[in-house]
């Protein structure tokens, strides 16, 4: 018994969130015969694709021992900028000029918006040595306020079929948002495993002073990480906007909590240096399956929140005890 536990322990540790996910799926599957259907599977994957976009960026930030609370607001502003430009373009009455935007142009503008806000987060954190919690908390309200200013508090709707295709379309039998989030995961995994940038991100989270002494340009890496997080939040914003055919001024409220939950459930340590993108993806799937399953089983909305909180708590407790064992 002792020997078999010793042999299997590393494997159990490595796949703990996968095992948890499997158990969750089996439980819901037994309770509802509607869970294991192809249509429901695509449903869950499409619903979590926004959270995956945000959470991948959040993982990078958390790996450097930082946090980004502004992702929900950045998502809203990027989506609103893209929708506004697509719908109304820019009018410059002073120069008697009107600039219209194509779908592609609006998408680029949205992603640029997110990158710029993310870059600003990174710049403020490295330049003024602000705690990431504070700097991104400030950005959370700044970006939300800018969204209100840009939209004047009203949703921007009627964005056209080619833009809504992004969030509602299918390609080769798979929903487009799933392609997009899957592509983002693939590229980021390669970035983290195969490039110097990825190794530096882990190194900074492990020990910032050690990384500095070995000549890593910490500020540049950090700014890069926050810029990427902003850009990925913007992609999430474009997906939400396009799915709803509408940029809502209050879109993405409290999304930062869902994405931090995904990161934590996926086994990434909030103190940095330890964790992985694929772990976060599993965390996001667990949250998505939980959301979907609780509705399928018609669990009361009051209990749903309690259950989600308990799952997050359990995930962290298990993760902590396994980290001690290592």
């Amino acid at each position, binding site marked *: 018994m002792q020997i078999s536990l010793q042999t299997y322990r590393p494997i159990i540790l490595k796949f703990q969130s996968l095992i948890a996910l499997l158990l969750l799926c089996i439980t819901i599957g037994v309770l*509802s015969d*509607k*869970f294991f*259907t192809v*249509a*429901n599977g695509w*449903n869950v994957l499409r*619903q979590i694709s926004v959270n995956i976009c945000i959470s991948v960026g959040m993982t990078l930030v958390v790996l450097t021992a930082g946090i980004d609370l502004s992702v929900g607001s950045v998502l809203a502003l990027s989506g609103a900028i893209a929708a506004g430009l697509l719908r109304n373009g820019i009018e410059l009455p002073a120069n008697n000029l009107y600039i219209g935007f194509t779908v592609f142009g609006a998408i680029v503008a949205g992603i640029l918006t997110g990158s710029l806000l993310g870059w600003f987060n990174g710049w403020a954190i490295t330049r003024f040595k602000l705690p990431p919690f504070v700097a991104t908390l400030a950005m959370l309200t700044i970006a939300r306020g800018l969204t*209100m200013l840009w939209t*004047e*508090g*009203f*949703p921007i*709707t009627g964005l056209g079929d080619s833009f809504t295709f992004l969030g*509602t379309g299918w390609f080769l039998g798979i929903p487009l948002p799933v392609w997009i989030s899957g592509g983002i995961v693939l590229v980021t995994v390669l970035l983290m495993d195969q490039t110097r940038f990825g190794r530096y991100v882990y190194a900074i989270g492990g020990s910032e002073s050690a990384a500095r002494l070995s000549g890593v340009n910490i500020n540049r890496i950090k700014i890069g990480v926050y810029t990427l997080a902003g850009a990925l939040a913007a992609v999430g914003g474009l997906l*939400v906007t396009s*799915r*709803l*055919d*509408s940029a*809502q*001024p*209050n*879109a993405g*409220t409290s999304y930062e909590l869902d994405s931090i939950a995904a990161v934590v459930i996926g086994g990434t340590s909030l103190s940095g240096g330890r964790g992985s993108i694929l772990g976060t993806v599993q965390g996001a799937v667990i949250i998505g399956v939980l*959301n*979907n399953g609780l*509705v*399928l089983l*018609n669990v009361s*909305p*009051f209990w749903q929140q309690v259950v989600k909180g308990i799952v997050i708590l359990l995930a962290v407790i298990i993760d902590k005890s396994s980290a001690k064992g290592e």
Partner: protein
Amino acid sequence: MNQAFFPKKIPLFALIITLLIFGGCQKTSSENQPKQVAVIISTLNNPWFVVLAETAAAQAKSLGYEAKIFDSQNNTALETDHFENAIVSGFDAILFNPTDADGSVVNVLKAKEAGIPVFCMDREVNSSGAATSQILSDNYAGCVAIGKYFVQTIPKKPSGDAIKYVEILGLVGDNNTWNRSKGFHSVVDSYPAFKMVAQQSADFDRNKALEVVESILQAHPDIDGIFCGNDAMAMGAYQAVMAAGKTREIKVYGFDGALDVIESISNGKIMATGLQSPETMAKTAALYADDYFKGKRDFPQKMPVAVELVSQANIKDYSALIK
């Protein structure tokens, strides 16, 4: 020595000068300037409340008063700050949309103590006599009307099977959520043929409603109707129904009177909504403040503002709204 000298003195000078300016200003304002009206709004995060706030401010201005909008951001603590600021800076009346029926009572009482009348709009505070008057939309009665239209418009099944429907609730901690739900159920529950197969919350949010209804449609692909506690959720629910290709089988009903839903009703996509007019409530509140300034003191404690049913049957009367 000099360095130690300056930082001590400068703030003192600044303080004295500020006090001088501030005191001077207040004196002239009470004598010469028009009365000031504060519009304190629970949130500007939702177009409906933006209309409420802006109409109230515009109406007060057109009556010759100064008006300023404060955004409480759904945060009762921030609302307290706004009240304290409004009292200190000498506002003469407050047009108020509370963040919380119970939590906001203290704020209203504080203004009452300071002799400033408070007129509640749309949402109430749970205390009689605290506010000068409460101008409220009648959520319960509005949803009774929706419930009646609901049972009329969903046909009985020839087979005699139960009619299955779904209710999407708003924020489960909100008074309006339950007033609407109770109004709706007070009618529909007395029809045994109607069976609610799922009741879920989507927090008044379009995206959440889309996701929740997508999941519900997996569990219950054979439902006949969806009642949503507000219009944003009705739009989200309709998108889920459309994506599932079931717009013929499933009828969607909302509440609020949002413009995109009224447009959807005229296109035959959504069945009905309750139009609560933020303009009517805001204008009434501003007119009450005007009466108060002119000496009137006896106001009705609660002034219900009717919710109009906008449906497939009467949408023609509302086509001017979506122009």
